[in-house]
């Protein structure tokens, strides 16, 4: 496991704070993270149910529970990353670097890094209906950036593919990824790709924002 220094923005005082990007998490490490995130998910769910907030307006990973998937996570050949700040997991990501290929005409069939999972800690979710703001800003961005860097390290020049949840589509689209379309094999989640040029632009100035 290796680690690098990164920064996040603490919302409370809008200050840049030091954080650590851990590289080399195993998929089953999500179980440890879930021990902390799980109770937080439940607390949010209770609040949302009490308010009668319909499903569409609830955070989309509210019902996720990696604890129930321990067996499957152990078998998963994915590479994990996590961001730690102030001794807590602020976000996590899993990527796969083998057997995923570019669909875009440009570079079609060439290997890319596939983002299997990106999530911020429940206290970093913005839940407008409850007036909850994220404690740290930029957690998803710094993980997403790490996926692009991983693609460069693998020799894939930043090529990246991922399936975004509906509430996150605008993020990846505005970050400059190409929207390939709904994927019937993934319950119609929208599939996005970065070409090498788009990835370079994203690393440089934040893409098409």
């Amino acid at each position: 496991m290796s680690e690098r220094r990164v920064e996040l923005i603490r919302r409370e005082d809008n200050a840049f704070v030091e954080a650590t990007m851990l590289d080399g998490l195993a998929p089953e490490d999500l179980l440890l993270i879930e021990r902390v995130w799980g109770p937080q998910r439940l607390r949010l769910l209770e609040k949302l149910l009490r308010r009668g907030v319909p499903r569409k307006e609830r955070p989309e990973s509210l019902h996720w529970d990696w604890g129930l998937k321990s067996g499957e996570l152990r078998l998963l050949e994915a590479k994990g990353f996590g961001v730690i700040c102030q001794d807590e997991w602020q976000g996590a990501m899993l990527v796969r670097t083998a057997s995923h290929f570019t669909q875009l005409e440009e570079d079609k069939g060439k290997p890319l890094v596939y983002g299997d999972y990106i999530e911020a800690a429940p206290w970093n979710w913005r839940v407008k209906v409850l007036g909850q703001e994220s404690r740290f800003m930029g957690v998803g961005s710094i993980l997403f950036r790490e996926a692009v860097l991983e693609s460069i390290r693998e020799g894939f020049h930043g090529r990246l593919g991922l399936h975004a949840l509906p509430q996150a589509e605008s993020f990846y689209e505005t970050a400059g990824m190409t929207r390939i379309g709904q994927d019937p094999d993934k319950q119609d989640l929208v599939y996005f790709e970065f070409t090498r040029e788009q990835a370079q632009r994203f690393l440089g100035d934040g893409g098409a924002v």
Partner: protein
Amino acid sequence: MKTNGQHDEPSRKWLRKMAELEDRSGSVLVGGLAQDLGMLPGRAADRPRVLGRFVEFARRTRGLSVERLAEEAEVDLAELVAIERDSERQPDPRTIYQLAIVLRVSSGKLLELSGLAEPRDQELDEAALRFAARSEPSAKLSSAEQNAFEEFVKVLVESSDED
């Protein structure tokens, strides 16, 4: 291959810009793995819209008018009409809960049918599909429909204790 180094550490300007974008979007969730592991809810579009038909059949079986059912369940008449017509509008959880009590079915399952609770019961999905396939909305209850309805009610009532 190494990264060229210049991009490894993002500038603060970059981070600020992306963090603002993240704020505007509200979510960064990537869900390929969650989908693979069955952690995404079923697509609402995949589920037959049977709540309205069910409520209507249940009401008619009891010989109740819409008004009377609204009274008994202490729910808004307009909302009950909207439910029976399977309108796009999502019903109020309280309404569904009240209807479940009066119609004597599991509130959890009725909430699932209404799209207010996570679909987790495959048997319910299948029962709803069978019911939808064998009944016509707003028609007189034929004996075949009556059978289809009764079969569906069984599934809706079963294990209501768990809810």
